[in-house]
């Protein structure tokens, strides 16, 4: 079997499995968030934390709950990182320094999982009870927010969007935790470690090697499922203890795509029009497929003098995965706001690496992070409907909701946030010695490292052109700001949008209504997504990957 046929079959397998699960899984999630029933464990939890699970919140209250929970999570995680040596299972590791702790705490609470530290420098307890716990919470927060937006579209004449605490707890108890558990065990069976001791071995060659231990499998499963991406080890999913075989590689790609690709179905179910969800899914799939193809093609061409000399783009890639499935992972992780990597993006070809930056620049919508991907795509759908709705001679409406000044204002603000953060951050970094001195590579590739960092942080992706020395005050603080604002400003706008939509009545659909489930709209939405990102990021990309690739 040729390498390309094998790669094609691998991608095909990926698509088939996703196609098979998205309907039942999406329907399941719709039931989770629509159900009025509380399980016993949930009841106990609500009683312990003091929540009335049947209270329905208005959007400002929902938002306040999100923000309070997240900010306090940052505080708790910061404290834990700082106090780690005094806690059990510290494994002899030092405490993280203040700025890096702040960066890391914000990074994990915002579902970014940017790591300016290397995983090997942290103790076991901090990883499993600090970082990995936020992998659950931050993912559940993203899902709660998108569910609130879906309710805004589905409900009429109400100011109620649901209960954040209930959505949060259900997301964890009914979706993330059970699946993470199953796949932690599966990954463990295939070689991912789960223990609490480092092992020193005398190597065959007569040397000594210290093999790290740790509760990796339990963290690995939620790291991908929750599109978090913070690796237990520095090498992330390239590390053989995190991702030991081609099969686990495929499973991890599946895990990081599973929820984002199934949520459109949940959306379709909850608004009562499955085809609307399918249109969103189709848009995401098209963009994903194009991006994966281009990335794989670029890596296969192995442009760049060093890679040409080596004969393949294998620098920074694991032999067991091969170039194509490394590129598929790379494209998928940057399109899902996951940010875990199974190969070093900094060593990708100019266009391959540029594609990864552009993927994040799309705003993490194809299919995007858990929850955040769908709400991002729905905001883009609203903008698309607005422009194309005008072209059919009606003041635009989406799913029967009129898109007036308030809705467009919120959608516009949403779209403004991440490009502004990414480009302003990159601009400041390139204008200051503090920003420039962290680059490993020189020339356009160095610029790409900085652009990657701020694009990744602003869009809550978390992967890196890791040559950049990010553990400096400049980057720890700058990227923390980008991550925090890049997460919560959009959430504020989305929930306000949800509130304004929920309060509306539904306009009935007529032949004069712009259909938003047809291929025409799917194509248009995909084009709008690409063009908006393209227009904004093109000048910066021109001086980074494009300049490098065309030289």
């Amino acid at each position, binding site marked *: 079997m040729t390498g390309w046929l094998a790669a094609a079959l691998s991608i095909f397998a990926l698509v088939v499995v996703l196609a098979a699960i998205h309907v039942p899984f999406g329907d399941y999630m719709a039931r989770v968030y629509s159900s009025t029933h509380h399980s016993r464990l949930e009841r106990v939890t609500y009683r312990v934390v003091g929540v009335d699970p049947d209270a329905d919140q208005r959007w400002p209250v929902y938002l306040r709950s999100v923000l309070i929970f997240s900010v306090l999570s940052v505080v708790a995680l910061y404290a834990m990182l700082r106090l780690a040596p005094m806690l059990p299972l510290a494994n002899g590791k030092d405490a993280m320094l203040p700025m890096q702790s702040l960066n890391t705490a914000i990074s994990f609470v915002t579902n970014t999982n940017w790591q300016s530290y*290397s995983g090997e420098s942290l103790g076991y307890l901090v990883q*499993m009870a600090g970082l990995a716990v936020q992998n659950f919470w931050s993912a559940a927060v993203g899902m709660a927010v998108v569910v609130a937006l879906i309710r805004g579209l589905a409900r009429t004449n109400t100011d109620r969007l649901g209960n954040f605490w209930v959505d949060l707890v259900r997301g964890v108890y009914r979706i993330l935790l059970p699946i993470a558990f199953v796949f932690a065990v599966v990954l463990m069976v295939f070689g991912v470690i789960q223990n609490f001791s480092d092992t020193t071995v005398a190597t*065959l060659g007569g040397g000594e090697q210290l093999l790290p*231990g740790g509760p990796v499998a339990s963290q690995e499963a939620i790291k991908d499922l929750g599109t978090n991406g913070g690796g237990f080890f520095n090498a992330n999913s390239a590390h053989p203890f995190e991702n030991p075989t081609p099969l686990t590689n495929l499973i991890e790609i599946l895990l990081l795509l599973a929820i984002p690709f199934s949520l459109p179905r949940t959306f379709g179910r909850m608004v009562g029009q499955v085809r609307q969800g399918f249109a969103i899914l189709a848009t995401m799939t098209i963009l994903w497929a194009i991006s994966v193809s281009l990335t794989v093609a670029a890596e296969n061409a192995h442009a760049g003098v060093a890679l040409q000399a*080596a004969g393949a*783009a294998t620098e920074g890639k694991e032999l*067991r995965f091969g170039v194509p499935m490394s590129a598929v992972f790379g494209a998928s992780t940057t399109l899902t706001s996951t940010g875990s990597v199974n190969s070093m993006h900094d060593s990708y070809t100019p266009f391959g690496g540029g594609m990864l930056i552009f993927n994040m620049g799309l705003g993490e919508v194809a299919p995007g992070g858990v929850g955040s991907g769908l709400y991002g795509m729905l905001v883009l759908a609203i903008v698309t409907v607005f422009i194309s709705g005008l072209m059919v001679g009606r003041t635009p409406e989406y799913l029967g909701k009129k898109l007036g000044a308030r809705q467009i204002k919120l959608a516009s603000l949403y779209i403004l946030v991440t490009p502004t953060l990414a480009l302003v951050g990159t601009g400041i970094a390139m204008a200051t010695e503090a920003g420039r001195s962290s680059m490993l590579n020189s020339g356009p590739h160095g610029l790409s490292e900085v652009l990657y960092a701020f694009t990744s942080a602003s869009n809550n992706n978390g992967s890196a052109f890791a040559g950049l020395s990010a553990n400096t005050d400049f980057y720890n603080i700058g990227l923390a700001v980008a991550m925090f604002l890049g997460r919560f400003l959009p959430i504020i706008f989305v929930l306000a949008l949800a509130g304004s939509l929920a309060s509306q009545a539904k306009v009935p659909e007529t032949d004069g209504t712009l259909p938003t489930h047809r291929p025409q709209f799917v194509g248009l939405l995909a084009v709008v997504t690409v063009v908006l990102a393209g227009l904004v990021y093109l000048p910066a990309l021109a001086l980074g990957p494009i300049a490098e690739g065309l030289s």
Partner: protein
Amino acid sequence: MNGVTRQAWIAVRLIVVGALVLGVVYPLLVTGVGAVIASGSAKGSLVESDGEVVGSELIGQNFEGDQWFQPRPSAAGADGYDAMSSGGSNLGPNNEDLLAAVQERRAAVESQAGTGVFVPPDALTASGSGLDPHISPEYARLQVSRVAKANGLSESAVAGLVDANTAGRQLGFLGEERVNVLLLNLAIANARR
């Protein structure tokens, strides 16, 4: 108690509950299950020789000398294959240091295997983790005659060991064909005795 304080209390208690349920109970449960059904792999797929642990099947290690099959170049730690310092070189596709390294590695391989031989890319580039336990069958075959000579084994015997330690694509289509360097060298060591 106003709304903000009330919600803050809920948040604090939920964070504590989460730390216990998700941060302690869940990983310990996974550990427990692992101990029962996957004890070998959960511990790190350790490889033993004569009752001594010599490494992990999954983690590459340095081998000094012509008698060993050489792994890929590694960027983990100063000397490579430092398992506590995983990572890649992060050098860009046009990086001059990377180009120099590639040329140097090619020269090193060619000096032993003959000038002008095809040197597979994995022999010239470092992996992402720096701990890649595998090399390509092509790179292994390139090393056969050197290893055979250094160990006093016949080339066909060594080539046979290479074949025996070559894993095909998983399920027939996943990943790449590869040779586990530690297991191959272990077989060499056993054959030498």
